[in-house]
């Protein structure tokens, strides 16, 4: 059996950033396992700009951003295997992890690693999971699938488009379809606020005169073999459609941008604890899961809005995986859970062990609604660790808090994160 220090599952932005930093941290025997034919993951189909402002200080397209990291991977001689899918991860009695893979060249075989980094990304919520009534014709796509067909395969998928859900990919695809010569009649969003970034609403909808219908949803899909139209209705405060407001939008294409789901089937099967709020693994301050030596980062951990944050987080996961693989032991000291209070939907990590924290510990979370003029407060008992004022907090924008290591020393109670009126 082949043994590795670190096996990184996924060669998208998360996996590549983890690999690069793991190598920098001294791990030599690394491999990235990527199921697609190329490195880069979903970035390859994101041919629009807006990537890299934080990481590289310049605006790049998705493929350009991916290529920067792929170049680093190659320059640093980090091995990667393409068309290789991991079927199973299981801890072994000796502390190593058995990783079962399948590929055209390897066949089915078991590899072994001291540390594993989970970087499998996420998938889109399909029409079936949304429970929209109606027919099941051709012409209904998740936004990302449509993006792949249009941008990578050059397929012309439709002329008259309706988009349900205002997630970022949906907004980007509203613009993309317009530039492809299609007419986008509307973007309907169930919630009273968009689930996409403000800049995407401005650049992808407003600039092209595409209406965003907040508190609206699709209640019926027409057309037996090919899509002929969708019925959109306004919803009340309980998100129940108001039938009197129903309106038929004739269209041949319906794109769905209704949420991303971290792809954690491997993680669950390995017995790793999953956070039901994020559908990602529960991790500590080192991004280590409930199985020692297995780390998680990027969109498989929790869905990010910017790839720059994915890279930053994954670099930390890679570095910690390297430390673990090189034999560094965790400090035996108390760990404190992070509890969420008013307005805070979840946090990553879910616990912090001050003795094992880096100089700066990130706490990332999303709010459950739109909040104006609030303070984000992080407290342990009576000790206030962070207080940050915000003019506005929206669910579509992840909040990133930093806590200095010295602030964490001496805490003796669980940590609480909540919003307070400012």
């Amino acid at each position, binding site marked *: 059996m082949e043994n590795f220090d670190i096996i990184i599952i996924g060669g998208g932005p998360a996996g590549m950033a983890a690999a690069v930093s793991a190598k920098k941290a001294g791990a030599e025997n690394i491999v990235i396992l990527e*199921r697609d034919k190329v490195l880069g993951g979903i970035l390859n189909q994101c041919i629009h700009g807006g990537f890299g402002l934080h990481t590289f200080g310049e605006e790049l397209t998705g493929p350009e951003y991916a290529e920067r990291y792929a170049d680093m991977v190659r320059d640093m001689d980090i091995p990667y295997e393409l*068309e290789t*899918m991991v*079927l199973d991860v299981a801890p072994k009695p000796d502390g190593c992890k058995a990783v079962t893979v*399948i*590929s*055209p*060249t*390897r*066949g*089915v*075989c078991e590899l072994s690693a001291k540390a594993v980094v989970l970087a499998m990304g996420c*998938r*889109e919520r*399909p*029409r*079936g*999971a949304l*429970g929209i*009534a*109606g*027919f*099941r*014709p*051709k012409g209904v796509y*998740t936004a*990302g*699938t449509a993006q*792949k*067909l249009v941008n*990578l*395969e050059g*397929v*012309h*998928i439709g002329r008259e488009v309706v988009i349900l859900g205002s997630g970022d990919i949906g907004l980007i695809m509203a613009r993309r379809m317009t530039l492809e010569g299609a007419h986008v009649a509307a973007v309907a969003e169930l919630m009273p606020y968009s689930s996409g970034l403000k800049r995407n609403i401005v650049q992808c909808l407003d600039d092209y005169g595409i209406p965003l219908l907040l508190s609206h949803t699709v*209640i*019926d*899909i027409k057309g*037996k*073999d*090919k899509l002929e139209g969708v019925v959109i209705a306004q919803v009340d405060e309980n998100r129940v*459609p108001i039938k009197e407001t129903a309106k038929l939008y004739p269209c041949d294409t319906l794109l769905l941008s209704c949420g991303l789901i971290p*792809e954690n*089937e491997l993680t*669950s099967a390995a017995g790793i604890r999953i956070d039901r709020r994020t559908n990602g693994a529960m991790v500590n301050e080192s991004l280590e899961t409930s199985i020692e030596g297995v780390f998680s980062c990027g969109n498989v951990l929790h869905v990010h809005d910017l790839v720059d944050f994915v890279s930053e987080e994954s670099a930390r996961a890679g570095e910690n995986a390297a430390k673990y693989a090189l034999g560094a032991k965790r400090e035996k000291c108390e760990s404190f859970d992070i509890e969420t209070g008013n307005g805070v939907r979840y946090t990553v990590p879910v616990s912090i062990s001050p003795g094992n924290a880096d100089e700066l510990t990130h706490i990332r979370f999303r709010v459950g609604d739109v909040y104006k003029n609030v303070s984000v407060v992080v407290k342990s008992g009576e000790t206030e660790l962070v207080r940050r004022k915000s003019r506005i907090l929206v669910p579509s924008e992840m909040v990133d808090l930093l806590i200095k290591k010295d602030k964490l020393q001496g805490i003796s109670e669980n940590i609480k994160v909540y919003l307070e009126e400012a």
Partner: protein
Amino acid sequence: MIDVAIIGAGAVGCAAAMELSKYKLSVCVIDRESDVGEGTTKANSAIVHAGFDAVPGTLKARFNVRGSEMMEELSKRLDFAYKRNGAMVLCFDKNDEGKLTELKERADKNGVKGVSIISGDRARELEPSLTDEVTAALLAESSAIVCPFEMTIAFAENAYANGVEFKLSTLVTGVEKTDAGFVVKTDDGDIEAKVVINAAGVYADTVHSFVSDKPLAITPRKGEYILMDRSAGGTVSRTIFQLPTKMGKGILVTPTVHGNLLAGPTAENIDDKENTATTTDGLASVKAKGALSVKNIPWGSMITSFTGLRAVGDRGDFIIEESDVPGFIDAAGIESPGLTSAPAIGEYLCELAGRRLDMQINTDYIAARSGVIHLSALDDEHKNALIKKDPAYGRIVCRCESITEGEIRDAINRPLGATTLDGVKRRTRAGMGRCQGGFCSPTVIKLLSEKLGIAMRDVKKNGK
């Protein structure tokens, strides 16, 4: 002139074709859709009913019992998924328990073995997810689950291997009686046949009326279903039926043969034979009724919902007979337990047709059929041997169901293979998982476009 034209390539039409292919006959199956099993066959409960429900003496009882007996052997010989998982009929009211006794008596009269009445507590012991409201249950050990697409495709492929012709994407527009037999008119030319079998599902009445003045009416009965991810498949191990309650006719909750969880169907008579749309109310009703039987059904893991139309006849029973027009045979009103009965109906249709034909045994008959090889079903040694022979079997295309490019190519390239996205899905399960084709459909579309020599945008999801 051919011997037999079968109108309809559903489970019944394909079963009849398979039976007829055991004889030296020229047989043609005609269907308006581009694949077999695209009508009622593709959207039902996928149950091989034990046979306790059908009224003794009816055709339903006769063919149900016979079909159920045949199914396991057929699944082995023709390589389709089948599992005897057992079933329960739940009773929620002490006053209704007499109805369980009635079912038990029917089972006895129909000759169904392994049927007993058990207490609510015993039912919960066997199926811990059942609700506390269950007072008693009928247990039927011989009930089973099957993959209806695989079964019908297997029948069709076996028939095809034995010389049956399939004219798909061909709409029958009329049937005329001639001195020598019939002319079946289609949108792609005429077919002359000595015998016609009408297995046209919800349109069997229309096809019947082409040649007969005797009334026959089919009412489509809509049934909506919710399918959940395989992570929910272990919620129950048996098929869980309900006795009718105040909420109306019950629904079932069952694992599927591929390990998903299925709940449904609703039952609503409608007029429109094309109306396979789901409705908000229908799906809500499935959830409400399902919750009567089983605690904490994980509706959140729903991956799709669908509607099937049962072809309900006007006699309260299957209509399987030579019509008043000699040589024109109806197989109409094949509602539940139609799927179970299909192979037995096929046998009988072959017998009916045989009365009008010279039946010479086909000595070259090929009895066995091999389905698409599913890599995940093999042990590691066989997996590696296959991947070594064809590396496409090492390339996973559908992540959710772990389906490889090799399997998809097989489904497309095999005789009577897939020509649509749904055709690939039904043969391989690619696209049938939790992401519903989000990741794999561009690749599958590409493979289909290469094989069919058409642009990717012209690859169909299903339909003609």
